[in-house]
């Protein structure tokens, strides 16, 4: 297409058309699979399947690590507070406050204070993941039918058993919703992690000067697919973990 010829940094009559779309979805998909010469002369190839997979793996890695970290921190606290019925202000307030954290400022701040690198980015992402998981753990446990809890205590279950065998299974929908929300926030922020030195798919998106508009759109496509894929996975997991009784009652 004539558009692409003009766009690939080639010399020619300077275009007088504004907003000439240089990347179509077609050229972007080609970028994902085939390495191409960069628009920046030097001839080095950019893009292609192996680089795309490498960036995607890094994004997945850092997402999973951050999610695990935030779950380790948030779940015990949220479940405990919910079980005891105290600390509502903290749990719910943290959820609200967590939503208000601007992602770009968080990544930049972490990079400025701790430095660039995987560990720092993981911590920053975990900070974003903790509020939704904590709040939903708390709310999920609180919403469990009190009668069931009392009945469980009545038949002699210990507090730990009440929590693990009665409250948590009944709170799974809310809990998983929190985890899914955290994942979405983490994946979205992991996309701008290249600013802090961790090369995720955001590298394609942020660095148009290296990868060209094809790379930018390609990066966006792959990130979107990854986010949707993770969400689907977690939704299926939620379906499997939700006990039959709950599923029937909500139908």
């Amino acid at each position: 297409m004539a558009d692409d010829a003009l766009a690939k940094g080639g010399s020619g009559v300077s275009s007088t058309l504004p907003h000439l779309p240089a990347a179509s979805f077609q050229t972007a998909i080609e970028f994902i699979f085939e390495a191409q010469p960069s628009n920046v002369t030097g001839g080095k190839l950019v893009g292609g399947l192996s680089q795309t997979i490498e960036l995607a793996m890094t994004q997945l890695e850092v997402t999973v690590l951050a999610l695990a970290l935030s779950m380790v921190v948030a779940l015990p606290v949220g479940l405990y507070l919910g079980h005891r019925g105290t600390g509502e202000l903290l749990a719910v307030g943290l959820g609200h406050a967590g939503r208000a954290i601007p992602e770009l400022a968080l990544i930049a701040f972490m990079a400025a204070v701790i430095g660039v690198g995987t560990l720092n980015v993981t911590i920053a992402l975990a900070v974003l993941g903790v509020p939704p998981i904590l709040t939903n753990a708390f709310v999920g446990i609180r919403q469990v039918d009190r009668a069931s809890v009392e009945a469980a205590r009545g038949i002699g279950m210990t507090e730990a058993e009440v929590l693990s065998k009665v409250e948590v299974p009944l709170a799974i929908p809310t809990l998983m919703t929190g985890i899914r929300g955290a994942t979405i926030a983490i994946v979205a922020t992991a996309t701008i992690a290249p600013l802090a030195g961790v090369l995720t798919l955001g590298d394609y998106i942020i660095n148009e000067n290296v990868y060209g508009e094809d790379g930018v759109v390609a990066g966006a496509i792959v990130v979107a697919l990854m986010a949707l894929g993770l969400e689907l996975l977690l939704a299926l997991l939620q379906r499997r973990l939700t006990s039959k009784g709950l599923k029937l009652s909500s139908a």
Partner: protein
Amino acid sequence: MSSWALPVAAAGELPPDFFQERTSETLPCQATSKLFCFDWARENIDRYGTPTVQHLKLVALAVLIGFAIAFTLALLAHRRRWLRAPLLAATGVLYTIPSVAFFFLLLPLTGRGVDTAVIALTAFNLQIIYRNTIVGLANVPSPVKDAARGMGLTDRQILWRVELPLASPEIIAGLRIATVSTVAIATLAKFAGGGGLGVPIFANGIDFKTNIIIAGGIAILMALSFDAILYGIQWRMTPWRRVAQA
């Protein structure tokens, strides 16, 4: 054809006091990696004025348009149960796609600028508002609706005079969540060329901690203020809830 008048000193020569001696010891606070430079902050706070206004505009547009669309969709789906799941899924997809990716997916279509940023931000908050509205409407107790029908109200009147008022706490809660989230995400609008508080974070040095704290702090304050305002509206709109607590 203009001719220039040359000043007394040849233009281009600078007075000797133009140059300053700088050494590691005499660097001002903002050149070091101190956490917060109060003096600099006080003197330069006006740099954040335009980005803050841009940010407000982005959020206002995204939330209002998002509300208009999501609310309408929810009303449609309220009557037609078969619409609920598909619309939830559709808005869910828009919510899951990271905003940065969305900006650049729109790039071939709408180019850079505020429009692209607003479209992506609007898409982001559709699901929140839609889901809360649907759930709020669904939670209206049937006895109340039956009573209203018994009083002779039409379906439409029931919707606007009974269901929606009773659902309003849930709807406003959704609006609160959407607004707070949109304020946070709008810092990324910088990547779409849409301005906002993301711009000063880059412009004044991405590792300049004072700058990040100010820009991020303004965003957080903005989010919490909107939250408080909407909470106040929610409180005023539900006097029956207040009576129950009193």
